[in-house]
Structures are given as C-alpha cells and as structure tokens.
C-alpha cells in the first residue's frame, strides 16, 4: 500500500499539471460547447467526474479480468468504448427513473458524455500508467479510480474557469468578427498557456 501522498500527487497532477482539457486537449467539445454560463458548465463537470470515476472502475476491471486472461489487450479501444457507452446509457436510465431532479440537471449532458474523449482518454491512460507487461502495478486499481476522479475534477475546474470568463466576455466590447467562437478559442489558448506554467512541477 502506497502512502497517501502518492494519491494526492495523482490528484494534483491530473487537476493542474496534466489537466485533461488544457494540457492534454481532451474533451474540448463540451469545453467550448457548454461553457456559456456557469450553471450548466458545473453540471457538465460533475457529470463528467461521475462518469470518469465509474469508467475507471469498470474499464480496469474488464481489462484485468477479461482482456488480459484472453490475451486481447489490443482490443481495449473497442472494449472501452463499448463499456463506457453502455454504462452512460445505464446511468441515464437509472437517474431518469430514480431522481428526476438530478436528471433535469445532468440528463442532457450524460448523453453527450458517451462520446467524450476525456472519458475514454482517462481509461486508456490508466492502463498505460498502472499496468506493466500485462500485470497491474501495486495499488493499481485505487490509483486508477483516483486518477479518474482527478481527471473529472480537473475538467470541472477548467469548465468553471472558462464559463466564468465567458460570462464576463458577454459584456466586453469584442470586435464583431471575433464574437463568440473566435474569442473563446483565444481565451482557451491563453488558459492553456497559463496551465503550461505548471508543467515544470515535480511531485
């Protein structure tokens, strides 16, 4: 069992240093699409966090107990997409029935997450980082889950920052040709540059 610091370092790494949106450039579609106002942006972030965490658990299990014993590691892309899509569908059905209130907040975003590459990215990254020669490293499962959660938290942070900036941009005098998408892209690139400042950190 690793010391607790290993898990903290994973979280800090995924939230700041290797932020999924701003450093790895994964999940850019909702980052631009759903970041117009803070409310939906945070809802989207929470939905993604939930799905990345659960997807980490599921994909790790499937990889360890199904793919490795059959020697099918090369099919992980196909399998993970299948697993994630099924899980999101399942979660949507259950939430719709059990908690209509939560469904109204998260429901429309859940369907979008099915095709979100950040979710798939974290699943693949878990395998790349915490498996060696087809064998799970020490504490591999827990680290995967923590990384999944951290990826979602980093995603939420980026969404929150972006939506806050865009809400203020509404009132700024942006030249007409730069309104909406162009200025958003510029803001995103500046934020990415700022997050590049974390990349020297060693933990």
């Amino acid at each position, binding site marked *: 069992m690793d010391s607790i610091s290993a898990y903290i370092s994973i979280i800090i790494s995924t939230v700041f240093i290797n932020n999924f949106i701003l450093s790895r450039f994964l999940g850019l579609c909702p980052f631009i699409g759903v970041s117009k106002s803070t409310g939906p942006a945070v809802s989207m972030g929470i939905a993604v966090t939930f799905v990345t965490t659960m997807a980490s658990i599921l994909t790790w299990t499937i990889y360890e107990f*199904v793919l490795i014993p059959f020697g099918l590691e090369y*099919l992980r892309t196909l399998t993970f997409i299948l697993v994630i899509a*099924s899980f999101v569908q*399942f979660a949507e059905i*259950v939430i719709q029935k059990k908690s209509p209130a939560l469904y109204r907040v998260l429901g429309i975003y859940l369907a979008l997450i099915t095709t979100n590459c950040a979710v798939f990215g974290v699943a693949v990254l878990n395998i790349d980082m915490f498996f060696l020669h087809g064998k799970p490293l020490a504490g591999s499962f827990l680290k995967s889950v923590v990384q999944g959660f951290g990826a979602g938290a980093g995603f939420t942070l980026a969404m929150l920052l972006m939506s806050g900036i865009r809400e203020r941009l509404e009132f700024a005098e942006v030249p007409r040709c730069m309104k909406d998408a162009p200025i958003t892209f510029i803001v995103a690139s500046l934020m990415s540059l700022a997050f590049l400042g974390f990349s020297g950190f060693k933990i």
Partner: protein
Amino acid sequence: MMTQILIPVVTMAALGLTFGAGLAYALKIFGIEVDPKTALIITKLPGANCGACGKAGCAGFADALVKGEAVPSGCPVTNSEARKAIAEILGIEDTLKLKQIAAVRCSGGNKAKDKYVYHGIKSCRAASLVFGGYKACAFGCLGFGDCVEVCPFDAITMGDDGLPHVDPERCTACGNCVKACPKGLFTLIAEKNVYYVACSSTDPGGAKAKVCSASCIACKKCEKACPVSAIKVDANLSRFDYQKCQNIGKCFEVCPTKVIKKR
C-alpha cells in the same frame, strides 16, 4: 489460427450481448414512458425547425406544448388545421392568433437612383457594407434577394421591378426575412390589414423625391383623407395605426407617389 480469431470474436460478442441484455433489462425495470402526445404533435408541426417559436426546433416546441408552457398558436408557421389538430391532441381550446404576413416597406427598386456602380458580391448584406449600399436612398431595397434565399417556404420572389414580392398564401410569418434584410425592410402585418406604407426612408420629403420616384414625400394627403385618422405623418414618413385602420382605402387612392400599397 482459428482460435486466434475465434477468441476475440466470441469474447466481444459475449461482452456486447451482456451489455445489451443488461441495458434492455434496465430499461424494463427503470424505463420511463415518453409521452406519446409529444411524438404525435411533432408529426403535426411543420418540421422546418425555423425557431420562430423561440424553442429549439419543432421537437422542443412539442415538448413545451405538452408541458403546457406554450400554446399551439406560438408556432407562427402552422396553418389553422394543424393548430386545431394539435389542440385536439392536447385537449385544449385552440387560442387563435391572427395570421401575419410579411410586407416590404420599400417601393423603390428600379425607380430609385444609384449612388455608384456596384460590382461586388451579389448579396444585400455585402452590398450594404459598402457605404450603406449603392442606392442613393440609404433606406431602400438593394434587390439582390437575400430575403428570397432565407425564406424556407418559397414565399418571396424577386420581381422585374427590382423588389421582392411576398406571396400571402405561402407566407407564414416565420420572420426569417425580417432578420435577413440588412435594411430592415420587412415587417409582419396582420392579414386583415391590407394597406401598408411601402417606404422606410425618414429623409426629408424633398431629398427623397430627388433620389426615388416612388417614395413617401410626407405630403400628408393620406392623413387628411383618412376619415378615422388611422394614418399619420411622423418623421417624414406616413405611418399606420392599425388599431384604428378599417381598410377604407382613401389613403391608397390619394397617395401621389403610390407608396401606400394594397395586397
């Protein structure tokens, strides 16, 4: 060799089947019935997804209808038959809204003089960016037919007179032309009001007459002729008060430049 192919095929098939069955089972236990009314209403809506109702397309409007957040007449495009059918599905009374038709508030076209020769992109938007357009009248129609292009119902055609013409039968008052015209010449007028002023220029009467032979010269003849005082000249332009107008048509008869039009 065969096993190398068989193992992945069987494994993936088993995984897919498991997930599929799991989802089907979950849908049976947790599934929620979608309101069949919504699907039925969508078939009655025009399906143009023009967004004139303010909702995200026809499906969004149908959803709002079922929830009671909208009334059938909120869709300006549907005809009265479809509205009635929708009201029947919802089990409510069809609250009738007056049908509106778009009108072009310019009768210049070829009668308006040009300021310069324009050789650019054949689009009103592009032309209006160059010193407000090539027409000597800053308010007038540029005649490239941006409105014809945006009309989803083919209700607008470009006439030989250099002006767009609205087919009242086809017009559904979706408002696309109102948004598309860079000069803002389109306006939606209730179907029962047959007269309208086909000029938008607020330049002084004399200046207008110099550049366009079909402009409102603010002579006030219509104002004097109207027995119910439903038309007034304000800021160099005749304007209707449709609250008072009774379609008498005196103004139409006396207008010297024939900018008061009947449809």
